[in-house]
């Protein structure tokens, strides 16, 4: 279990790094947004891992699990919220990208800067 716990944190860290790299280094605006979703997904994974209880049950009562151990419902609630926040941000970002493409004719950051400089 110890190993899996560590592995979760490593995966979280690498995912975070991957997404963050895409946001910082890529110049394509849509790629940046994709990176942003990866970046956020890493955080989701962190929270859900935090809330998990070894040998626990999903926090939904049924007839026959009255006294079993339950995983923590709170991080799940938080992440439900965060997922919805994430898709809202993505949708708004995509709308902005579409507008940018309409007025600039490109969605590459460096080309946009080039056009503005002229």
């Amino acid at each position, binding site marked *: 279990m110890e190993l899996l716990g560590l592995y979760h944190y490593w995966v979280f860290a690498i995912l975070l790094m991957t997404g963050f790299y895409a946001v910082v280094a890529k110049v394509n605006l849509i790629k940046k947004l994709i990176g942003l979703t990866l970046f956020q997904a890493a955080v989701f994974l962190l929270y859900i891992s935090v809330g998990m209880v070894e040998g626990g*049950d*999903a926090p*939904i009562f*049924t007839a026959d699990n009255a006294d079993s151990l339950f995983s923590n419902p709170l991080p799940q609630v938080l992440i439900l919220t965060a997922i919805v926040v994430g898709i809202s941000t993505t949708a708004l970002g995509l709308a902005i990208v579409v507008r940018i493409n309409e007025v600039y004719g490109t969605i590459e950051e460096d080309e946009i800067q080039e056009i503005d400089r002229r």
Partner: protein
Amino acid sequence: MFYAVTIALLATMALALARAIMGPTVYDRVLAVNMIGTKTVLLMSVISFLFGRPDFLDLALVYALINFIGVLAVLEFFRVRAYDRSGDSEADGS
């Protein structure tokens, strides 16, 4: 008992993922996405039983339905692209 199926499904997902990453055409990737979708549905069903929580089959059902919409959206995308670029939509960057 469910382990054997789970392992087979996981292995297949890995193979399909390899296909999705390798390409070479976009259709291969869509195919791989579809395969992974189906495997996910099955995996969820099997794991529901593995956990002894058959009420979670709802999730598998959602996947089965949502997956189809994804594929149709891709088709629509291809159609639009085909009109846009008169047919070179199979070109693939990677």
